[in-house]
């Protein structure tokens, strides 16, 4: 469903109504596109839950425009082309249900096509009597189809515009000679006959007369800067008063994001300090977030771990926008926490445990023992769940190794090249005679990287006390270490 708004009282010398119209329109939908300097097309699909039926939406839109002091005509239709034609033909609010466009347009005069055939800047001044316009050779018309002319009207050169004018004038004059008076007359013509006379332009014109769109709406790229600043009357110290300031900043910022269908991908918090320094923090969010409470909590937790060194004079928050998420929940899987919850949880955990202490382990492509890195935990993955009813052998796989980071030095008695006794000091000492031993398994690597080379022999030993552990002999230093305990 599209809404076309035409500012009937618009004058060239006044530029402010355009901004007012755009501001009002974007309260309803972020997907808008200018058609000329006085006409705006708005994609209002999916607003039924917010505003109700199209008539209610149209009334609300009309009321908002009137409140802004704009004199407008409004047409709502299932296609952009139908809305554009209807808004030129009928005053006030016109509503056409989706699917009824052809019937609604059938009675309109065929001359209205000039508003969709000619670039908007020149619309309204075409010679329609068929005498003034000197048509270009047909080959030039057909090389530039009317569909292309309609979709990209602003990028055309003046020569292309005049060519479009001439082409439109010629087509309309031809239709007039044929006795066609309404769009319904054109829509009823046989498409094959039209194509034989006009080439590709014939069926394209007929589709326009039925109200069909040649291409989807390409909404204009709005100003994507989302930033709020609040200078403070008095410097504040501590995070508790700052939380109230952040709440005042994030509420309008998130409302703005919500209106544009955006969410925050990266959050920037800049604090102007009394020392004239700028304390800047940057948070990469694991998932797009546009909830003010979540953003405020994340910012506060980050500032809690990295507090500013002085009192704060002004606060600026800025977000890098990204398209908002659409979640599709599954009935067949257990509900997972929302990304906002996960982001808040990980931020709290990082504030508690420290950086690089919380995350999702990712194994590195190396043979170095205990090689992994932590990545932000998002709670989302693209892997399907394993079959739930996989037959089990009844044996949980493998013995688990509990790694000691870093490995603990150990005293090892070696007999005939094999560990015979182990001693590791501590309040709860580990040690004793080796009952069984397996090894050594020799591994080395990174010898090509200065300072990162490793070379070791690993032994799995069972001590007489029942403990099973992994011993490592560093061959470069000739020292023994307790690498971990099997459990």
């Amino acid at each position, binding site marked *: 469903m599209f809404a076309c708004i035409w500012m009937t009282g618009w004058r060239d010398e006044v530029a402010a109504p355009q901004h007012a119209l755009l501001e009002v329109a974007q309260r309803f939908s972020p997907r808008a596109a200018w058609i000329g300097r006085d006409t705006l097309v708005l994609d209002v699909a999916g607003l039924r839950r917010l505003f109700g039926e199209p008539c209610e939406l149209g009334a609300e839109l009309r009321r908002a425009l009137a409140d802004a002091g704009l004199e407008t005509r409004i047409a709502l239709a299932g296609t952009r082309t139908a809305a554009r034609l209807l808004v030129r033909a009928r005053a006030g609010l016109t509503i056409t249900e989706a699917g009824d466009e052809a019937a609604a347009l059938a009675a309109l005069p065929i001359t209205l096509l000039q508003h969709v055939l000619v670039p908007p800047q020149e619309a309204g001044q075409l010679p329609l009597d068929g005498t003034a316009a000197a048509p270009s050779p047909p080959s030039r018309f057909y090389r530039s189809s009317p569909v292309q002319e309609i979709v990209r009207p602003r990028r055309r050169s003046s020569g292309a515009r005049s060519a479009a004018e001439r082409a439109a004038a010629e087509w309309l004059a031809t239709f007039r000679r044929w006795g066609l008076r309404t769009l319904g007359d054109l829509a009823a013509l046989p498409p094959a006959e039209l194509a034989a006379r006009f080439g590709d332009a014939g069926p394209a014109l007929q589709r326009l007369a039925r109200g069909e769109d040649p291409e989807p709406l390409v909404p204009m790229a709005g100003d994507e800067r989302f930033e709020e600043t609040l200078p403070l009357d008095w410097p504040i110290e501590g995070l508790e008063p700052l939380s109230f300031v952040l709440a005042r900043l994030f509420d309008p910022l998130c409302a703005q994001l919500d209106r544009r269908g955006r969410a925050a991908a990266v959050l920037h918090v800049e604090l102007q300090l009394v020392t004239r320094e700028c304390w800047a923090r940057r948070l990469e969010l694991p998932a797009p977030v546009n909830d003010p409470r979540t953003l405020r909590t994340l910012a506060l937790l980050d500032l809690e771990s990295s507090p500013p060194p002085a009192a704060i004079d002004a606060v600026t928050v800025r977000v890098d926008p990204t398209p908002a998420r659409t979640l599709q929940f599954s009935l067949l899987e257990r509900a997972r*926490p929302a990304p906002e919850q996960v982001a808040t949880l990980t931020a709290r*955990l990082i504030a508690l445990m420290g950086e690089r202490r919380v995350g999702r382990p990712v194994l590195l492509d190396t043979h170095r023992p205990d090689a992994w890195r932590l990545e932000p935990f998002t709670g989302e993955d693209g892997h399907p769940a394993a079959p739930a009813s996989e037959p089990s052998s009844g044996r949980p796989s493998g013995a688990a190794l509990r790694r000691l*980071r870093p490995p603990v030095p150990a005293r090892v008695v070696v007999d005939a090249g094999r560990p015979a006794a182990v001693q590791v000091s501590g309040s709860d000492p580990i040690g004793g005679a080796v009952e069984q031993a397996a090894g050594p398994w*020799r591994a080395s690597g990174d010898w090509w990287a200065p300072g990162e080379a490793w070379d070791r022999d690993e032994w799995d030993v*069972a001590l007489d006390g029942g403990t099973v552990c992994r011993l490592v002999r560093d061959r470069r230093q000739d020292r023994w270490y307790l690498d971990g305990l099997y459990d």
Partner: protein
Amino acid sequence: MASAAARAALESLLRTRKLDTTLVGQDLPAIRLSPDRVLSTGAPALDSALGGGLPRGQVSEIAGPASSGRTALARALLASATGGGELAAIVDVFDRFDPAGAAGAGVCLDRLLWVRGESVWQDTPLALDPAWEPSRPGPRAARSRMGQAVNRAIKALSLVLSAGGFGLVVFDAADVPVRVLRQLPFTTWLRLQRAIEGSDTACVLLVREPIGRSPGGASVRLGSRTPAIRAVEQPADFHVRVQASRHPFVPGRPRVKPGRAGAAQWTGSPQARRFRGLAPLASVQCGIRTTSCELEFS
């Protein structure tokens, strides 16, 4: 007659308080929870003893001495939870978790939140290496660090449980001395259970001795059998093969990484394998009912 009425009243009261899993008696059948209210351990024998698996919404515990299979069982639980598409978390008090081993056991690391605690080795410093000694704190400092690490991990566990949405949360305190855990307020474990009551989260404590199971949870006590080691096979008659990776990297030639120890580097012993696993005895306690079963990790 009066005792029967009193018993019925008591049972009704326990059911109201969701404590009916503690009911026992000759006439009561073995409690078997709904399949969607338990988390399978991956071991049918243990699942059977537990009445289907570890109960969700409760704090359970896996207790035992070192090398008794606690971590292997917890890893199997993590594999079961993440393999079913659920999120899991492990609060690792002393940073002992081995991601590579877990991935090899079937744990989906993408669905695992790992909270790494401080790496503390027992209470006292080690004095074997003079060069290494100064970087280690003294006994009192180490004891203080251990207490702080445990307190911080408990807070992290509380945060994770309160957040919700996790199918399994493992609190790995297997290396924490029992006396340190006993110094925690007794309400700690009750508070944790309240945080997940009624949810789908199963919380599992890895401890040396049972300490904090909730009334509806289960205790799995593992004890080593002798011999503790199974199937350690010696790599007899081995020799080192020249490794391709010893050649310097030449652009245009495939870069070969040094092979990990094992079949790639050792020849003459195709059966050469590492330590394979444990076979502990599991004593399962649900309510005040206790059963035993044999486990085998291979």
